[in-house]
């Protein structure tokens, strides 16, 4: 088993990983950028190392991270999510050093990180995919028109190196196609240093459904459940729930079986999530995330599995060993991502938290790195807390979440809590009429 784990991350996920390590009696090493030393993950780890100047780029400095692992004699590195979590070079660098990378091999990251490769791979193993260009768009604009016509409008232009909702643009009419392709290519070059784009059918009102995978080094792959993450603002998830309501059991079983088979074939190890769009009873694979996800707690609440613990166990070479209880799902869980931002404009709202009270009680969980006195800076993304609830049904979970948000008191930064309250109170959300364009089609911005 791993003895000392270095967490190559910060914020709430670093804290989450430290907590799993404490449970497993694994020593922890926190790293931080100058100025981030007052962070909880630094305070609570067994050791901490300042690895570079203030700012997010320090957490992307592979040399500094490896140097910190060397001087602390860590034997494993956990990349968390974001930063270098899906960076094949980092995965390889860690394993080249003889350390355990708590994430997939660089081959698998490279395979699934390129969106087009991932779609091709999944299609090959029978996972349904969205009708699309099936490859990067060639340079000839005439061919673009032909491909789009074959797929059928509206189409979605997507950057091959994109992800997290960035580098995408829908096109409704043929006359807008060429200019839109040029626009996305330019954007992609700037954001991802890669201007390859492809086309997909644009679904009007699909739900975002994803499947949580666990796989060990002995070829055992399990789908531990699904999640609905349809509530998104500018392609960023803000509310997630487990399980995904309203999926016919047979369709779910078939989907899980297909995903399991595909991941066994590619030799996947660890945790991963297969993301799909679901419309009119059809699943369409869009991408796979080869890491732990922000919203993993909702799956933990309904199954009782500690996904980070299981992830570490898988990479330490242990066999998957889930109980019957853990392989089934009870009740319903919802997570609200609390961001330090203006609820109407989404503009980040850094500042010092002067007062803080988090909710509690039966079925209420808070994953957060903030505390009264903590300075939320502009250097990092605006997620400051995840409030998660678990109750016997979806309607009960909504009521528990509404009360939990009412109980939450936070002074010093603006948050999107008013937006969450509006969404939860809406008839559409309560009657399960949700889809990924929920927040653009219905105007749910908070009254400021």
């Amino acid at each position: 088993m791993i003895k000392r784990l270095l967490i190559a991350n910060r914020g709430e996920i670093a804290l989450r990983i430290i907590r799993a390590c404490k449970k497993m009696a694994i020593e922890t090493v926190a790293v931080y950028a100058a100025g981030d030393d007052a962070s909880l993950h630094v305070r609570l780890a067994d050791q901490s190392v300042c690895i570079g100047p203030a700012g997010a780029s320090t957490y992307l400095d592979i040399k500094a991270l490896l140097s910190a692992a060397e001087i602390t004699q860590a034997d494993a590195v956990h990349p968390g999510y974001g930063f270098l979590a899906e960076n094949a070079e980092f995965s390889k660098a860690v394993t080249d050093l003889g350390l355990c990378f708590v994430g997939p091999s660089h081959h698998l990251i490279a395979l699934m990180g390129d969106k087009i490769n991932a779609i091709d791979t999944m299609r090959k193993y029978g996972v349904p995919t969205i009708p699309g260009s099936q490859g990067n768009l060639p340079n000839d604009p005439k061919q673009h028109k032909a491909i789009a016509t074959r797929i059928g409008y509206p189409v979605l232009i997507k950057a091959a190196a994109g992800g997290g909702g960035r580098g995408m643009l829908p096109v409704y009419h043929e006359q807008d196609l060429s200019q839109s392709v040029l626009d996305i290519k330019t954007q992609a070059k700037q954001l991802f240093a890669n201007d390859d784009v492809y086309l997909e059918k644009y679904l009007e009102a699909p739900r975002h459904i994803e499947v949580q995978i666990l796989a060990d080094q002995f070829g055992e792959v399990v789908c531990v459940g699904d999640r609905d993450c349809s509530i998104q603002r500018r392609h960023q998830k803000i509310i997630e729930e487990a399980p995904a309501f309203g999926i016919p059991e047979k369709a779910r079983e078939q989907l899980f079986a297909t995903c399991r088979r595909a991941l066994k074939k590619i030799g996947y190890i660890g945790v991963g999530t297969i993301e799909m769009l679901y419309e009119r009873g059809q699943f369409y694979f869009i991408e796979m995330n080869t890491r732990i996800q922000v919203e993993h707690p909702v799956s933990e609440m309904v199954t009782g599995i500690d996904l980070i613990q299981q992830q570490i166990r898988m990479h330490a070479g242990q066999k998957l060993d889930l109980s019957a209880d853990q392989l089934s799902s009870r009740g319903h869980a919802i997570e609200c991502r609390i961001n330090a931002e203006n609820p109407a404009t989404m503009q980040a709202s850094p500042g010092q938290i002067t007062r803080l009270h988090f909710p509690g009680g039966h079925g209420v969980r808070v994953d957060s790195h903030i505390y009264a006195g903590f300075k939320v800076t502009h250097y990092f993304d605006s997620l400051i807390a995840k409030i998660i609830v678990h109750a016997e049904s979806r309607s009960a979970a909504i009521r528990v979440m509404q009360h939990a948000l009412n109980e939450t008191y936070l002074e010093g930064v603006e948050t999107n809590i008013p937006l969450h309250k509006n969404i939860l109170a809406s008839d559409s959300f309560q009657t399960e009429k949700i889809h990924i364009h929920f927040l653009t089609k219905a105007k749910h911005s908070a009254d400021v």
Partner: protein
Amino acid sequence: MVSVKDKDIQRIIDLLKKNQIGELEVHDGKQVIKVRSSASGGAQVKAPAHHTTSTPDTPSIPRTKAGRSIKAPLVGTVYLAPSPDADAFVKVGQTISKGQVVCLVEAMKTFNHVKSTEAGVIKEICVENGHAVEFDQPLFVIDDA
């Protein structure tokens, strides 16, 4: 900021030295003052309450240093001489110029030459040869000639 009086701090330092205590922490209900005696015998004051973690193989990292200091520009292992048999790059009391190499920090088998950011006299060497250093950790205290 901590609003303690100088004489309070001096009293704590005296207590520390007199009783040969390595570290003293004083809580007054509202704030905490921590004083640690460094290897060279001088006392350092840390304020406000601050949890310093240290690795088992490396010494505690002092966060504040009187005078100006040359800090580690990266995380790694510090070497005070160009090779195991050679003389140290600099000595206490030596006058150095801006840009002069004062030590090496090795990270991932790459040796980085650390150059002084200013001219002056080396007043103190804050680290031991072969020990781990963090980014921004004080390596040398430098002062005017």
